């Protein structure tokens, strides 16, 4: 019985929940099967962050990623196919508490959110909560209105890439 329950638990993937909490807030929650210090490490070391921040399904390639994880330190991500067609995301960390809390600004536009990530460990697992606070309801509405288009473009890029890969596999 216990063994069965355990195998069910491993078979069940931790789910990612996202909710518009208020006019200005988005809240994302996810549990990870590891202690907070490990999850925190994966968020704060560039070589680790690079491995998961631009998943294949997103169609984005991470060209560069620089992080200076300390209060007042800056970060900068560049996404794109090559450096001529890249999109940069940048800002600074305004609060860093090892293994428990990260707060950063998003300064690529005037209406960027402040992002807070908390890591809460319980029984060897970590509950991660990512909270985005936009400066106004309009700023979040604009982010929402602009996103689908951007994502469609991203998915179109992915389709292209897959077609290219498929073609080259076919040739070889």
């Amino acid at each position, binding site marked *: 019985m216990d063994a069965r329950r355990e195998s069910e638990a491993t078979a069940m993937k931790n789910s990612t929940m996202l909710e518009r909490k208020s006019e200005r807030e988005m809240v994302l929650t996810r549990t990870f*099967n590891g202690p907070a210090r490990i999850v925190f490490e994966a968020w704060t070391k560039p070589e680790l962050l690079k491995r*998961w921040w631009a998943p294949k399904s997103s169609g984005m390639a991470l060209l560069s990623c620089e992080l200076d994880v300390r209060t007042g330190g800056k970060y900068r991500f560049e996404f794109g196919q090559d450096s001529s067609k890249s999109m940069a995301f940048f800002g600074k960390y305004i609060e860093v508490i090892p293994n428990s809390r990260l707060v950063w600004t998003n300064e690529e536009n005037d209406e960027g959110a402040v992002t807070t990530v908390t890591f809460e460990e319980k029984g060897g697992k970590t509950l991660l909560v990512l909270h985005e606070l936009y400066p106004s309801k309009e700023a979040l509405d604009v982010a929402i*209105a602009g996103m689908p288009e951007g994502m469609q473009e991203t998915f179109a890029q992915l389709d292209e890439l897959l077609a290219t890969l498929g073609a080259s596999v076919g040739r070889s």
Partner: protein
Amino acid sequence: MVQYSQTRFDVSFAALSDATRRGVLERLGRADASITELAEKFHMTLTGMKKHVGVLAQAGLVTTEKVGRVRTCKLGLRRLEEEAAWIEKYRQLWAARFDELDNVVEELKRKEKVDGRKKRE
């Protein structure tokens, strides 16, 4: 995805389970109306109607806007659909990131175990 939609549907169905609230939606489908107008139409107190509108707004079925002292209500269905679609796409992006992060966490855990064993030896 399932869980998110589930919550959304639950809230929507709860909002729609009441005859007065369905009536309010029907009325707003014809024209925008103030809370006072809706209260009169459905023979209710202002407070009672505010509660119903609150439930509908929570489900994204109605949006309200206050101009001066009058709160006007209108149907919010389209917005709900657009926003839900965006939220689902954004959620999928993060879900994909987090699936990759799972792998990184697993690897770091294994490494830590091996290093721990080495230290004890």
